[in-house]
């Protein structure tokens, strides 16, 4: 645990790095609750790791583990494991602890780019977007969205697709995390010779993706191929939008972009970069 400039809190343990910010008179108490909730977070997940790496199984006991299982359930029967929501679920859990007290006007927990946030009436929140987009996502208290997540190549997780980034706005961070993973998997050109793939287990023996092929390198693509890959992802994202699973998505690949749903992009370079 450490303090950062701007008086944000940094919580780190093993592969988890969270940046926590809060505003309001109850801020210090809230951050203290967040730090307390962080204790044991990783151990709790590890205790139920075999279940969380499996697509099916009994409901786990831990609160974060339950958030993960619930977040991925709507995507079945396609292949997905609760691990697709691990970062977002962790962020939600810490945010809930932070906000479990009075006088927090705004707060966010950024877990490696997957962010859960809290907004009181009259407030809004701006998030910088990955993928070289010159603008910010703005969410106000009137919107139902309280989570944003990004998935794609170049991140820490393995992806079955070729998207550079897929940013998703959803009701919560865990659902956004799972949706971003699934949409990013769909941005793909199956059988394209310029895309190098290897079984996930070759890179990470413990991966929940096991023998499934993941993308290691994407060679040159023609603009038409980029269009084709992005449109696959866009169609899938629109289906998720119609089912109410996401509020919007932004898909980026090789200089092209697709926007699904109503994303409020503002060209304002001022602060509030919760997803920098």
């Amino acid at each position, binding site marked *: 645990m*450490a*303090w*950062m*400039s701007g008086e*944000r809190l*940094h919580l780190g*343990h*093993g*592969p988890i790095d969270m940046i926590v910010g809060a505003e309001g008179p109850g801020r210090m108490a809230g951050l203290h609750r967040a730090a307390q909730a962080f204790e044991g977070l*990783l*151990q709790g997940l*590890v205790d139920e*790791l075999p279940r969380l790496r499996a697509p099916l199984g009994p409901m786990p006991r831990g609160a974060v583990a339950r958030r993960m299982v619930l977040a991925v359930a709507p995507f079945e029967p396609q292949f997905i494991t609760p691990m697709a929501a691990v970062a977002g679920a962790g962020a939600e859990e810490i945010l809930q602890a932070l906000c479990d007290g009075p006088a927090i006007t705004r707060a966010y927990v950024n877990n490696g780019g997957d962010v859960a946030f809290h907004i009181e009436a009259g407030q809004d929140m701006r998030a910088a977007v990955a*993928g*070289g987009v010159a603008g910010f996502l703005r969410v106000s208290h009137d919107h139902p969205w309280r989570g944003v997540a990004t998935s794609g190549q*170049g*991140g*820490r997780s393995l992806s079955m697709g070729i998207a*550079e980034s897929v940013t998703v706005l959803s009701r919560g961070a865990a659902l956004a995390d799972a949706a971003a993973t699934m949409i990013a998997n769909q941005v793909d050109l199956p059988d394209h010779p310029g895309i190098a793939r290897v079984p996930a287990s*070759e*890179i*990470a*023996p*413990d991966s929940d993706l096991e023998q499934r092929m993941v993308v290691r390198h994407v060679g*040159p693509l023609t603009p038409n191929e980029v269009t084709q890959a992005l449109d696959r992802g866009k169609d899938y994202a629109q289906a998720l939008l119609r089912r109410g699973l996401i509020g919007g998505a932004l898909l*980026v690949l*090789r*200089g092209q972009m697709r926007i699904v749903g109503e994303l409020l992009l503002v060209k304002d370079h001022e602060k509030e970069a919760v997803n*920098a």
Partner: protein
Amino acid sequence: MTTATSDVKIRCNACPVMCYIAPGKVGACDRYANEGGRIVRCDPITILDRRVQAGGEIRPFLKSNWDGAVIGAGDLTISGGGAGTTYPDYKPAPFIISREVDGADFVTVVTEAIYSYCGVKVKIDTDRHLGAERAVVRAEGEEIGHVTTSEYGSRMLSLGGVEHLTGGSKAEGRVTCDALLRLCNREAVDLEIDGGAHVVVQAGQAPIVDGVREERMRVGCGSATIGMFASQWQGLVDEVVVVDDHITGVVSEHQAGKVLGWPDTGIRIKGHRSTPGRYFKVARPGSGWAGTDIDDPLTILNPWWEKKGARPGLSLLMVSTTGEHAGYFVLDEALQPRPHEMPEVLRASVDLIAENCEPALCTVMFQAGAGGSLRAGVTRNPVRLTQAVQAGRAQVTCGGAPAWVWPGGGITLMVDVMDLPAGSFGYVPTPALVAPLEFTLRREDYVALGGHEAAIRTVADVLEHGGEYGSEFRAVGPQG
């Protein structure tokens, strides 16, 4: 720290996740890796041990075989490689170390800096035409820099920088970052210059221009070569032309020939005469003789003048500025130069030119700015660090290699990548490069500029307990 299993995969217990990590791979955290059956911090804290300078070989530095005697003797430095970073600069630099140097109590602040503003200046020892000044330099089709002002015997490229890293398209930034990273880590990189050559650049290695490895740097321009060798040619040959993309020299007309009493030969050179015996633009730039497009040197000659001394039997040596190309000719009855076998004595003078050429190399200088936020890891009052660097009170090193700091504002530094321990550079997806950076200054100066005094530790303590991000060390000799 590790538990071996039946498989070559091993289990990391650095954190509760306890990843199984295959050989050569990293765990879920990207911080710990399986290296030869052991779990190591991916980029171990580098210790530069002047004692192993001879050979510069990397050897494991373990607490158990460290006798402790070297501390304070000034031959052990902890560098920023593998120290972990302060990004986004919220806490004291990973290591703030006190060490005694010549009785003074010095503090070295060690970090891995993330440079958004960074690039490389590449010096390529060749006279070959690589591309026009300001021509675009590309890697994988993306624009990553440009050809800049040529230097004596060398072509210069300016690559990277903030405009290409973050000012262009996503692909441009990614490719630029990748090319810079590989150049800085001394790997070979393919570059394509608009309207020019294809060059393979690798720090410390000869450039490869359009598939041809460049062996030698020219000894001087054509005129300078005449000046250096005129007296050695006298009496052996009637005329010498040193072909050069910049200034082609003619010995009978050149001042160096005149002072030796060299007779006129009636030779006539194409191109713009500068001063006697010195010609610009005898041909177009290219990858033939001495950076020109010439394959047959006779193409730069106009018909010879009989009334100025041309006569049948007159001998002519034509040679490039590197001695790489040479031809010997004799005028026939019609005053046409005809190729002849070169006499042995002249062959020796051509070899002498070649011998006076240095090996052609690529030099990669990393240039970057240590920005505002990075300095906050060093001091609570960042401008004072800048002032201390500019006043010479704080010494700046990268992985133990002294960096040259530009005068004027800010901390803009330049360092030869060959001086850093191998593999010192990394990147973040911003995209930006990550490189070790150390500031060394007197303890009292450090405290005076608002340094994190409470975080100061001794070298012994760091070796004993490691840093926040691990305790694996490797010792390397300072480079160069």
